[in-house]
């Protein structure tokens, strides 16, 4: 019996193992984590015949260069990703949203995410990973999850403990659409801000700064003026919360966020727009639009239904 594994030749900028994340640990100080763009994560797994919530590799900007050793294996990449497959004699430009076959000695070179941040590489089979609190999701800040809580490193190995039996011929026609506005619900401290500050928040354009990672997204733009207090009594946070510290620049909490925060919450990104939000790369312009709770709930139903439809189209 031969061993099946990937040799990591180049790890990429921030490549981690992710699944749906871990729940019921906020009170301990551990965030949800999990794949940032859930839809693309689910689709990658379905394309290789895995359960949709199986562990996959998430990469940001530049992904890994991997060399495969072992029996035939299926892989799939989702997102907006430029990548190449290097076989013995040829180099093939890779297409996202379709299953691909790798053979012993083949290489997969994930060059970049195109005008987006995150992409997913699913591997048809079971990756040999440790679980912590029923999730393999790596949280590099808390050093927990698969790969000893660390991001992928050069020269390490990814072991595949079991391959999916049949080879896949799966494909999906899908285009990641951009949205004009990120929709939000007013936060619990919305009234801490001046009328002018509120207007700026809901009408002006902000730019995603370079200080953006899996923990949070910092935005730059016109300052949002606070008229009550730039601190609140520290309290819980959830992903999507937009805090405004004393400097007036909003910060959006993302999947690896600190679990407690003491800055006023001006808004919360609606669940339906989260996958799109996280794909905004530094330099992207962003505008917020306010919706009410029932619209947000309906928009999520639609988004979820659309995701389910896409998953069921892959056979």
């Amino acid at each position, binding site marked *: 019996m031969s061993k099946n594994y990937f040799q990591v030749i180049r790890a990429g900028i921030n490549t981690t193992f992710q699944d749906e994340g871990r729940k019921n640990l906020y009170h301990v100080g551990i965030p949800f984590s999990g794949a940032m763009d859930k839809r693309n994560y689910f689709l990658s797994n379905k394309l290789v015949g895995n359960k949709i919530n199986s562990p996959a590799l998430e990469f940001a900007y530049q992904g890994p260069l991997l060399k495969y050793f072992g029996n035939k294996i299926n892989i799939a990449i989702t997102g907006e990703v430029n990548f190449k497959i290097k076989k013995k004699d040829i180099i093939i430009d890779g297409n996202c949203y379709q299953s691909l076959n790798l053979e012993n000695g083949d290489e997969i070179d994930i060059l970049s995410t195109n005008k987006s941040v995150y992409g997913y590489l699913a591997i048809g089979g079971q990756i040999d990973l440790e679980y912590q609190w029923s999730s393999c999701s790596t949280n590099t800040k808390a*050093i927990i999850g698969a790969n000893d809580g660390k991001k992928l490193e050069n020269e390490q190995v990814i072991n595949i403990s079991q391959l999916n039996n049949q080879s896949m011929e799966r494909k999906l026609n899908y285009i990641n659409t951009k949205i004009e506005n990120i929709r939000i619900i007013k936060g619990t401290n919305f009234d801490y801000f001046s009328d002018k500050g509120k207007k700026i928040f809901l009408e002006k354009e902000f730019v995603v700064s370079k200080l953006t990672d899996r923990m949070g997204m910092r935005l730059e733009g016109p300052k949002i003026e606070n008229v009550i207090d730039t601190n609140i009594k520290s309290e*819980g946070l959830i992903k999507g919360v937009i805090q405004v510290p004393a400097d007036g620049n909003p910060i959006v909490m993302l999947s690896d966020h600190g679990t407690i925060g003491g800055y006023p919450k001006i808004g919360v990104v609606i669940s339906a727009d989260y996958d799109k939000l996280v794909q905004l790369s530094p330099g992207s312009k962003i505008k917020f639009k306010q919706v009410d709770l029932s619209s947000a709930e309906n928009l999520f139903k639609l988004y979820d239904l659309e995701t389910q439809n896409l998953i069921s189209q892959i056979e």
Partner: protein
Amino acid sequence: MIKNILNLGDAALYCDFGKEVNKETNTQVIRYFKSIQKENISSINNLSPSYNKLIISFDLKKTNFKDLKKIIENLNITNEDNLKNKTIEVPVCCDENFALDIVRLEKKLNLKREKIYENFFSKEFFCYMTGFIAGMPFLGDLSENMRAKRLETPRVKVPKGSVALTEQFANIYTFESPGGWNVIGNSPLTIFDSSKETNPNLINPGDIVLFKEISKKQYENYNE
């Protein structure tokens, strides 16, 4: 009692227990937190108790704000005798190499370091909440004359184990992390243990914490 339940975004309940930060209000928060935890409501993803708030985040595929709010409002909240709290002794070494901000505190509080440590080690602390980083306990209350603000410029790296003060609270840095609290010593005790699946935190909301001074030598030999 919960004064008010609002929505925080479309997938969380924001339960407000009143403006005051004190043990009584926080005990109410913890009582709700423990009672809800015991119910094992499958649509709930997370509970975040803090000084005077409880945030309940939920799976929007399984429930919604209105329905979950009704469930929480109709819950039977267990009374005091179900709150089993521990008392934990935390050893702290106050060697100069660990007490990064003791000189600053002497100035800010206008107290000699002997007095600062005497006040600190004679105090019984109450754990209001844990978090920000995994396992970090927020402990109160320091007496009025011990309250100092955060550093003007936060440290990029506060060493793991640092015991630090700000305003009415003390905390312990469970990891090396950025932070702006006034560091007065270091504890060799493991406060967060990620290898423990069931209870990774040594100190939990509602627990009592006593700090005990140890020498540099005791510190060095502590984990042997």
